[in-house]
């Protein structure tokens, strides 16, 4: 097993400086850094065997197609999907949700039907459903959250009714870090034969996901949040659902036969992969999954838990810091405000100290509104962060307070 210094050395960006200071990267919720093996894998595509997939008769195209399908198999086994047909490469979580929202809407939603999401959702799991509801005359229902930032299950159960067609919630809140009780959510929906989409954008990188065990109908995530390249993501769907849904984009590779009178679609998973996909990104994602497996979720989970507890006690020790999202079930995200200091001011000063955090509404305006705030500062940690970095954040916050309380 590698030690933390060896792990950090795998990620070139972690060794860089900003404004002459060593980078303290605490914005992993927005995107994670890439280990050298992922960078090499993408590099190798372009330096050794770049060719369009599923099209060529030549050796390079064979190799590229094979590596692409290998990556699909890696994802399948990583999330324990039943078969490769259930694993679709998309552009990311947003692309995946838009696909389901559109195609599911076309096939199953009528005027007056209802879709349930939660108040914690990222805009990517709100707007596509809103657009679909507007198109179809359907209604969006929202599960409220309590003061700790947890969804209120009792209210969720009340929202389910005979008009509910689909439930779409995140596994983990990106703004607050709350882990949602997805099993409970899925079981309740399934008892009424309602399918559930789980937005795993903030879940996939923090613990083992087993879609068979979870029994979700759709699971979506982005490659760039699990140490893979950007512009690639996954839409997992149970085959019985995916085969029912019409494709939402037409083009090459997704067709079986095209005439001007009638086009028949290709089989799964290609039906949902119109055009040349980001095959280099997919291969990079495969390498990222290999990397995560060598580190292992036992290590990742225990280390991130330690970091969260250290950060929570360090930040709580600063009198003027208010933490938003206080569920016992949280991943390593701390969303906070400093009394009397605008989050943007705090972020800018921390930036100048080499500390990268995110400020603002985190693309989750409704949950900010729920807490009556305009935004927060968010420190999102992952296994390659250190307690020393969190202490630097603590010192940074104290410096911010001294600057703005003059």
């Amino acid at each position, binding site marked *: 097993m590698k030690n933390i210094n060896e792990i950090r050395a795998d990620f070139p960006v972690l060794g860089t400086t900003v*404004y002459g200071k060593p980078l303290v990267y605490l914005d992993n919720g927005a995107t994670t850094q890439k280990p050298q093996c992922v960078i090499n894998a993408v590099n190798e595509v372009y330096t050794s065997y770049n060719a369009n997939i599923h099209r060529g008769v030549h050796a390079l195209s064979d190799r590229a197609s094979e590596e692409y399908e290998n990556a699909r198999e890696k994802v399948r086994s990583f999330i324990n999907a039943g078969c490769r047909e259930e694993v679709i490469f998309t552009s990311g979580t947003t692309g995946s949700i838009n696909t389901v929202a559109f195609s599911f809407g076309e096939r199953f939603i009528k005027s007056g039907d209802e879709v349930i999401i939660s108040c914690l959702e990222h805009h990517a799991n709100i707007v596509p459903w809103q657009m679909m509801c507007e198109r179809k005359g359907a209604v969006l229902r929202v599960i409220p959250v309590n003061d700790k930032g947890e969804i209120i299950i009792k209210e969720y159960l009340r929202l389910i009714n005979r008009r509910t067609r689909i439930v779409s919630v995140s596994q983990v809140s990106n703004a607050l870090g709350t882990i949602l009780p997805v099993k409970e959510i899925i079981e309740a929906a399934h008892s009424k034969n309602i399918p559930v989409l789980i937005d795993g954008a903030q879940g996939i990188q923090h613990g083992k996901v087993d879609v068979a065990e979870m029994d979700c109908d759709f699971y979506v995530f982005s490659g760039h949040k699990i140490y893979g390249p950007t512009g690639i993501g996954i839409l997992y769907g149970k085959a019985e659902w995916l085969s029912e849904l019409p494709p939402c984009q037409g083009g090459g590779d997704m067709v079986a036969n095209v005439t001007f009178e009638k086009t028949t679609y290709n089989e799964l998973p290609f039906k949902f992969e119109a055009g040349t996909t980001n095959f280099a990104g997919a291969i990079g994602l495969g390498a990222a999954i290999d990397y995560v497996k060598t580190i292992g979720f036992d290590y990742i989970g225990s280390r991130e838990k330690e970091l969260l507890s250290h950060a929570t006690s360090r930040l709580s020790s600063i009198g003027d810091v208010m933490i938003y999202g206080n569920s016992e079930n949280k991943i390593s995200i701390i969303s906070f405000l400093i009394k009397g*200091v*605008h989050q*943007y*001011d705090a*972020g*800018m*000063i921390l930036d*100048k100290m080499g500390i990268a955090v995110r*400020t*603002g*509404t985190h693309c989750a305006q409704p949950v900010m509104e729920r807490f009556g705030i*305009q*935004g927060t500062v968010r420190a999102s940690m992952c296994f390659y962060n250190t307690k020393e970095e969190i202490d630097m954040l603590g010192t940074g916050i104290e*410096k911010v307070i001294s*600057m*703005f309380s*003059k």
Partner: protein
Amino acid sequence: MSVNEVQDSIIDEFSVFDDWMDKYNLLIDFGKDLPAIDPKYKVKDYLIEGCQSKVWLYHEFNGNVISFTADSDAIITKGIVSLLIKVLSGRTPEEIISADLYFIEKIGLRQNLSPTRSNGLLAMVRQMKLYAMAYKATNKRQKEIN
């Protein structure tokens, strides 16, 4: 002082500091010195919405020059707002339209006015220039009528 003289004096003030924290401290002080906007103008009509911070901008035109007052909910943004007001308020529409705001770059705050940093500042400069263009056009029409 001309637009550029004011810009040069701001650059001078910042040039004594090497450290970023000192520069930001100076910005915070500028923000505090910004003449308060009348609360009745701190409403939606005068709001320039940024994703990160908000800016309110009010102006008056006396037929010759445009005066601006403004505010922001973030103090560092307010500091930069204050500098923009120092440079552009009380100027003729022509001066505002032709102003090349090089001081931002010189004092190292360019990133704060980049389109990727949605803090309301770039939109504020655009809005100031738009007002100036509108008054220039009105003045020209007025002269033609006379």
